[in-house]
């Protein structure tokens, strides 16, 4: 790939990777360029955009309208992208086991991942040569399935699991003393049925994009870069977002057919984000995590076929909201606050005592809120004609000890919804703060 680049890309790269135009028989493979050319009429892009990218002109910085496909998010910044970023439509999530015991190799992996991730989020190939260049006798340094695809708003977010710090009693990388107290394996919750092959991990990558192939391309190339240093432990595709992290987004529906994440934290409320998402610099062991977050991962299977046989009244009672509008059963519209006190003719609360909305409401959980970023998944079927489907729950919180564990403990015991779901995977990761240009993800942990 020669000149697939965002206009913000570094000029130095542009020079190295661009051949004189007269040497080209055909236009270079260019994700942004191709999109510009193909989409010019459709999306109303500036006519000169495609040519400008193809020639790699770093001078011209056309103000290009960011459509869903061409949208890019900066990789570098104070916080990692992919948390407050408006939730993209598609997910590929992967958890890794580090298979080297060398701290130097682990650091090099994080450096290599940082560079490749920064490139791919801007629509570039994973490596400098690209999917169709380099020695003919060597495998290309990018796998190629994203040729012709736009950046699609790709974000790549990295995390560190508890086992990176200590595994089987062993401190492999000299990090044992830097593990924040909150970073430990989530406890067993009532009714958990966890599959160890879908749980835990030393490292994680969350790749989100508006095109599924762009997200898969990212994880695939990062996994390839990791061979010999880290191996995929498990991975999960998500095909539809179930939350919104911006007031500009509609509330999406989960596979139960209900709006999900109505009460979610939104990027437009920075005070709440500061209070509930970013880790404050309070934990002496976890100073490196200041400005980062914790990612709670739960693979939640739904017994979809059974759910679908429930009367609408039962479905709405269990959730505590109407299916059509998403309004609380106590009345109002989607964003009305539920009134947990109001009772119906049978003297029972309109918002049932075991309804999901009541169980998880901040008022009943010490005010704790989460930034949810989950996805629907269907991983084929189970051989008995039932879909292996559900919600891949992702939530960013400042402290799982206050913002997740007590709530889930309660849900496992008393949530009416638990009759229709089963938690089959679980993991917790510390999400280091953002990366400065020239640095690498998690640098503060190793310095």
């Amino acid at each position: 790939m020669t000149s697939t680049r965002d206009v913000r890309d570094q000029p130095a790269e542009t020079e190295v990777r661009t051949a004189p135009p007269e040497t080209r028989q055909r236009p270079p493979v260019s994700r942004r360029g191709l999109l510009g050319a193909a989409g010019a009429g459709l999306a109303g892009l500036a006519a000169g955009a495609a040519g400008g990218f193809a020639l790699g002109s770093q001078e011209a910085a056309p103000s290009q309208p960011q459509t869903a496909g061409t949208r890019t998010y900066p990789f570098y910044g104070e916080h990692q992208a992919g948390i407050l970023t408006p939730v993209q439509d598609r997910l590929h999530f992967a958890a890794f086991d580090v298979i080297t015991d060398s701290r130097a190799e682990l650091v090099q992996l994080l450096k290599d991942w940082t560079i490749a991730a920064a490139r791919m989020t801007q629509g570039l190939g994973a490596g400098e040569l690209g999917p169709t260049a380099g020695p003919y006798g060597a495998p290309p340094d990018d796998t190629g399935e994203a040729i012709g695809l736009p950046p699609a708003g790709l974000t790549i977010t990295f995390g560190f699991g508890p086992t990176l710090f200590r595994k089987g009693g062993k401190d492999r990388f000299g990090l044992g003393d830097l593990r924040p107290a909150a970073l430990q394996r989530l406890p067993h919750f009532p009714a958990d049925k966890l599959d160890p092959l879908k749980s835990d991990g030393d490292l994680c990558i969350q790749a989100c994009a508006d095109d599924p192939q762009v997200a898969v391309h990212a994880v695939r190339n990062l996994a390839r870069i990791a061979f010999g240093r880290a191996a995929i432990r498990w991975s999960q595709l998500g095909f539809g977002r179930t939350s919104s992290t911006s007031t500009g987004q509609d509330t999406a529906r989960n596979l139960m057919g209900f709006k999900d994440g109505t009460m979610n934290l939104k990027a437009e409320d920075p005070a709440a984000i500061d209070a509930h998402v970013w880790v404050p610099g309070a934990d002496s062991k976890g100073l490196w995590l200041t400005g980062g977050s914790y990612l709670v991962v739960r693979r939640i299977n739904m017994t979809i076929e059974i759910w679908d046989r429930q009367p609408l009244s039962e479905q709405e009672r269990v959730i505590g909201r109407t299916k059509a509008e998403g309004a609380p059963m106590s009345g109002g519209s989607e964003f009305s606050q539920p009134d947990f006190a109001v009772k119906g003719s049978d003297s029972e609360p309109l918002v049932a005592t075991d309804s999901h909305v009541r169980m998880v409401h901040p008022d009943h959980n010490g005010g704790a809120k989460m930034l949810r970023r989950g996805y629907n998944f269907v991983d084929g079927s189970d051989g008995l004609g039932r879909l292996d489907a559900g919600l891949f729950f992702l939530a960013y919180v400042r402290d799982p000890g206050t913002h997740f564990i007590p709530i889930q403990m309660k849900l496992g015991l008393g949530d009416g919804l638990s009759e229709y779901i089963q938690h089959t995977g679980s993991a917790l990761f510390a999400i280091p703060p953002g990366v400065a240009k020239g640095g690498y993800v998690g640098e503060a942990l190793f310095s």
Partner: protein
Amino acid sequence: MIMTRPSRRAGGFALPVRALLCTSTCAVLGLPLLAACTNNAPAERPGAGGAPNPRALTVQATDTECKLSATSAPSGALTFAVTNGGSKVNEFYLYGQDGLRIVGEVENIGPGITRELVLKVEPGNYISACKPGMVGDGIRAPFSVSDSGEQGSSGNDVELVEQANQNYQKYVEDQTEQLVSMTAKFVAAYKAGKDDEARALYPVARTHWERIETVAESFGDLDPKLDLREADLEPGQKWTGWHRLEKDLWPARAKNYQQLSTAQRASYADNLMKNTKVLQGRVDDLEFSADEIANGSRGLLDEVATGKVTGEEEYWSRTDLWDFQANIDGAVVGFEGLRPLLKQRNPDLDRSIAAKFAAVQALLDAQRVGDGFKTYDKLTKAEVKELSDAVNALSEPLSKLAAAVV
């Protein structure tokens, strides 16, 4: 599955003309000039931002013309980006001054395709040529290389490649000999109904097959007769070879299996012996270029990843780890032969591959029992995953070996 396809030529040439060997990737010429390599185009060119790089040339080839962007260049590493703008398949050659000696070439450039020829060239006079239609003398023109102080590659590389070839040839011949003699013992025991002895000999004899598997597989007619798995049979295809006998010796996983009669045993066993001897006759004629040896090593690791780590190869006997070890043995021999060259070209890659081979070997050693290995069914899932991770860790740098040594 990617196989090394060795060139088949009668032995006995005093000076191998390696250009004949150049199949899809690179030409390593039997002349003390250079290593040449084709790139797919267009790669990066240093200096593109300022003055044009005088070592980066373009060739516009059509059915009637062969236009170079310059007719001279300073000595050093030159890149010819050859674009076929015609309708016939084209080739580009750089000949010595005599117009006979091939300095570098890139073949099989389809219409509309651009390929790069990268090669180190000494100062001197040369002749460039496009060959539309891949026939005749081509469209020729003089090309000169001035002395820039940068040298082309030394003859040392060519000697190293020849050394690697001779070592690998010997290895393949030696393994084939041992394959024949061990197969004879196995066949004798099997025909005589000495099943325990045959079962003990089976994985040992197959070791010699697996060590040279990519070479053996390159004979497309022999491989299915000798090494086909039952699951891979086409409708109507007769199942012969090692795995047919394997099932007869280890029928435990088969349903309602009918043991072969003595006459049937003799027939299958003689067939195995006959085809193994045919294989031996053919490998005597093989020569290997550096990229063939390198891709052979990678191919053996591909075999491990697809058939052995998964326990598919030896479905009945569960002796997959013997094959695993043998594939690694063969891959190590190919790699070791190329190391003198690789150490000059890319010492980091050399160290990386060597370390990953050692890591795989350590895991295999942990599964040894007596003279052999644990059977596949005795491995835990975690052990299989660990082996698989180590194979991936080795295969990734090994996939870069071929391009590094040509």
